[in-house]
């Protein structure tokens, strides 16, 4: 696709309305809520927190370079980054599969991997794609995982498996061997395994991989539904659009570093919202003067429009100042950068894998 050099114009419908136009439909209320059953052990209000988490492989390659992730309870945290940026290694460290060479991670307030036994039963995970025994049926695979979890009740196993399979629309395929599953069904079974019991935290690594658009939508709905019920969700992806819409928080990885993190709205706000003033040809010069006078840097003139980075200046001040100066104000648009443009700016473009 083509992204203009400034990257600012990718917002689908430029709005004339000021600040409130951020597509923050469901965001604000949710972040404030604490997790459901998580009230028991809250030594910290973060569901995931890492301190200088670092992984240097024996080859000397630094896959993760001292990152400080913070996922508030109840958040849907979009963990973004190109392939090879260190997302999966980070997730493996969070879950205790890989040991950090420096720093540490806390899940639900407890230090990993020491607290694996008490924390991980409350965490559902999908790590680098689903993986099951190919010659066992979907149901038998879930039975094996549930048997491996020493903290669940045997008596509720069948009911929980049925519910989880039904939730992911796998009821009819439950008795088919896993190797006959399509990629999308495999992915669903992976999600079904993560939802075998109520969880306080879900860590989903590329949950929509291999799903068709409809399946992707369903996963989004599922994530939203779980988050509404109070589950904290960390979703990793290298595809922005598929998770952008459900996230309350964003973290962007690039070459082992966490280059950006924060609530969904502020992440894009921090990056050059621009104001585009449309005026008559004669008034272009005075428009530039007014904008410069307001402290906006380097207004650019193109045709009948004058464009400048808004900085901290509220858009309404711009319009008032223009009118006061007698500038013909034919249009005023505020362009917020899309998450995609921020992402591309931070991680670089192109298909090259980061390393």
């Amino acid at each position, binding site marked *: 696709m083509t992204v203009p050099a400034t990257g600012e114009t990718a917002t689908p419908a430029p709005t004339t309305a000021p600040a409130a136009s951020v597509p923050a439909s469901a965001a604000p209320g949710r972040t404030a809520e604490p997790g459901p059953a998580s009230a028991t052990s809250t030594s910290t209000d973060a569901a995931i927190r890492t301190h200088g988490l670092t992984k240097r492989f024996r080859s000397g390659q630094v896959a993760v370079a001292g990152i400080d992730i913070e996922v508030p309870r109840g958040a849907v945290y979009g963990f973004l980054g190109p392939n090879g940026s260190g997302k999966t290694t980070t997730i*493996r460290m969070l879950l205790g*599969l*890989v040991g950090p060479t420096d720093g540490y991670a806390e899940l639900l307030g407890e230090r990993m991997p020491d607290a694996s036994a008490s924390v991980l039963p409350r965490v559902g995970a999908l790590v680098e794609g689903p993986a099951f025994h190919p010659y066992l049926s979907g149901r038998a695979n879930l039975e*094996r995982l549930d*048997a*491996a979890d*020493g903290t669940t009740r045997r008596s509720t196993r069948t009911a929980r498996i049925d519910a989880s399979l039904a939730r992911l629309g796998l009821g009819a395929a439950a008795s088919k061997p896993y190797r006959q599953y399509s990629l999308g069904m495999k992915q669903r079974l992976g999600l079904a395994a993560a939802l075998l019991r109520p969880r306080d935290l879900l860590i989903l690594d590329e949950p929509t991989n291999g799903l068709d658009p409809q399946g992707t939508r369903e996963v989004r709905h599922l994530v939203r539904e779980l988050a509404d019920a109070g589950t904290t969700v960390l979703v990793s992806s290298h595809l922005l659009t598929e998770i952008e819409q459900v996230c309350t928080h964003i973290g962007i990885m690039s070459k082992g570093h966490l280059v950006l993190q924060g609530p969904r709205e502020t992440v894009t706000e921090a990056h050059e919202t621009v104001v585009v003033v449309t005026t008559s040809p004669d008034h272009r010069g005075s428009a530039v003067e007014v904008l410069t006078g307001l402290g906006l840097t380097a207004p650019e003139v193109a045709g009948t429009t004058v464009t400048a980075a808004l900085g901290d200046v509220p858009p309404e001040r711009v319009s008032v100042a223009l009118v006061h100066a007698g500038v013909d104000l034919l249009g005023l648009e505020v362009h917020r950068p899309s998450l995609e443009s921020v992402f591309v700016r931070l991680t670089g473009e192109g298909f090259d894998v980061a390393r």
Partner: protein
Amino acid sequence: MSPADTLTTDRVSPAAGRGDDDASTAQRRGATGRLLRSELRLVFGRRRNLVLLAGLALIPVIIGVVVLITQDTAVAGQGPPFLQKITSNGLFLVLTSIFSCLPLLLPLTVAIVSGDAIAGEAQAGTLRYLLVTPVPRTRMLLVKAAGGLAFAAAAVLTIAVVGLVVGGLFFGFGEVTLLSGDQVSTADGMLRTLGITAYVILSLTGLVAVGLFFSTLTEVPVAAMAATIVVPVVSTVLGALPQLSAIHGGLLTFHWFDFGEFMRLDVDYSTLGQGLAVQAAWVAIFGTLAWSRFTTADVTS
């Protein structure tokens, strides 16, 4: 012997130590039992493993049929030890079959299953999901070891039971003539056969530990299987070199064929004890290696 050697590690593992009370201890035992049952279903439900067992079951059938057909011909009685005695007593079919399978077929089947134990789960990716379920790594290893031992036992028992049935059907049982020529009752002979079966099963425990260790080193099950089967083969080669007699006592396979001891009038248990002690040492060494590797390694599969 063997499971107990490694079982102790579970109790001292740091992960299990915190906040221990009776309930969580009980829960952990229950959890190990659940996982073990699941593991056994996996091992004995897998078609490949059943084919291996079926292959082993064919050996006594083939030997029995051959002996039955050729018993009145000139070649009757030629072949491995005990073979000429089968026609007089079906019990010897068990001995002949075990004797024939012990050099290669039994170690091969054991190597396939124990080499696959961890590496197979790693290759399929299921290992990471078991570990984040979470299954503590020590428990995972113990359950895999138990599954491997159970399969080794099943392999030997398959030969023994099929040999017993075929031998009984074809040739019947009677008094058992021992190596010395003395005769003992059928019941005594049965007991001795049971002893042989148990001894051979225990003789394979060291190999299971070796296979488990190799299985923790790789995500490629075939590599672990191949490495595992190399060990008894090399051990047999070394055991055949008299120049190396100094190390013979510690070789994995050196005491394997001591099961013949059960066919003496007075069984020398110290000889058998030596064989079992060597296996215990191999289990201890390779069990520890597997444990230290598996509990510290990054799981990147």
